[in-house]
């Protein structure tokens, strides 16, 4: 009985999978070289999925995200640098596609915020120290 069930399971899977195209070769398969895979993974975690807009392509199950993962792994394997792949994607989809903030003027306040906050903190601290020194 168990054998028959197993047989059915084996037959049923390919039939069910017939209409859906298999995922691209490297969509869910890691690269053989761990160093390259680490590079590819780091890039994939900062590329936004186009069909499910609040996920990175590393987290998404969308078929297009799978195709993008495979393309990124293959290009890294072929020796391309992650930042050049990111630039290639930004040239097509805009800054929007990357989670990594760029140095565009619109983001200057974001980069300046830590310095401004630090400055404010120093001012506040100086005021308090002065007050304590003068009892």
């Amino acid at each position: 009985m168990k054998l028959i069930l197993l047989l059915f399971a084996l037959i049923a899977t390919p039939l069910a999978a017939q209409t859906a195209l298999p995922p691209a070769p490297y969509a869910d398969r890691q690269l053989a070289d761990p160093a390259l895979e680490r590079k590819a993974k780091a890039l994939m975690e900062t590329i936004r999925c186009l069909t499910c807009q609040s996920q990175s392509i590393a987290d998404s199950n969308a078929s297009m995200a799978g195709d993008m993962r495979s393309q990124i792994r293959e290009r890294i394997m072929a020796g391309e640098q992650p930042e050049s792949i990111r630039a290639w994607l930004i040239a097509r989809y805009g800054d929007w596609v990357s989670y990594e903030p760029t140095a565009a003027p619109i983001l200057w306040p974001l980069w300046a915020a830590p310095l401004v906050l630090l400055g404010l903190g120093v001012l506040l601290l100086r005021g308090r120290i002065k007050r304590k020194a003068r009892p």
Partner: protein
Amino acid sequence: MRKLLIWLPLALFLAFIGLFTSGLFQPDDRIIHSRLVGQPLPAFTLPAAASDRPPLASSQLAAGQPRLLNIFASWCVPCIAEAPQLEALKAAGAQIDAIAIRDARPDVDAFLKRNGNPYARIGLDARSEVQIALGSSGVPETFVIDGKGRIAYQHIGEIRADDVPMILDRLRAAQ
């Protein structure tokens, strides 16, 4: 100075409220337009996606006359809704080529048999490679390609009946 500082938190609070309210009234645009509009089509060569149509290469889209490049898929439901509009465009003289995304030839054949086939050539992009190279983020999309192979316009989503005259105007403008 000190007296003014007391009002700073309230001022900040009101500024944030203002920011959030203005955000509420801004239209929510989540459409990702391709940055390649106005630029040459990336080079590609694709195998045939249908049994009775030739394959598609980017060089064939730079043949002097503006053409439409439709991105579709047999598994895409809005593409069915779009089919009559593509027929209308073809009847109005538009030359339409297509790329089928993540598809297989028997599925494309069945889709075209059911919904009509307005395409001159159909390329098969089984792994979305050309779609990503085009800066396209879904199906269906339609690009107007001018005679020199430059992307003149990108229409995102299905072409509705009232979009047809606009698409024809874009084709004429790309002459």
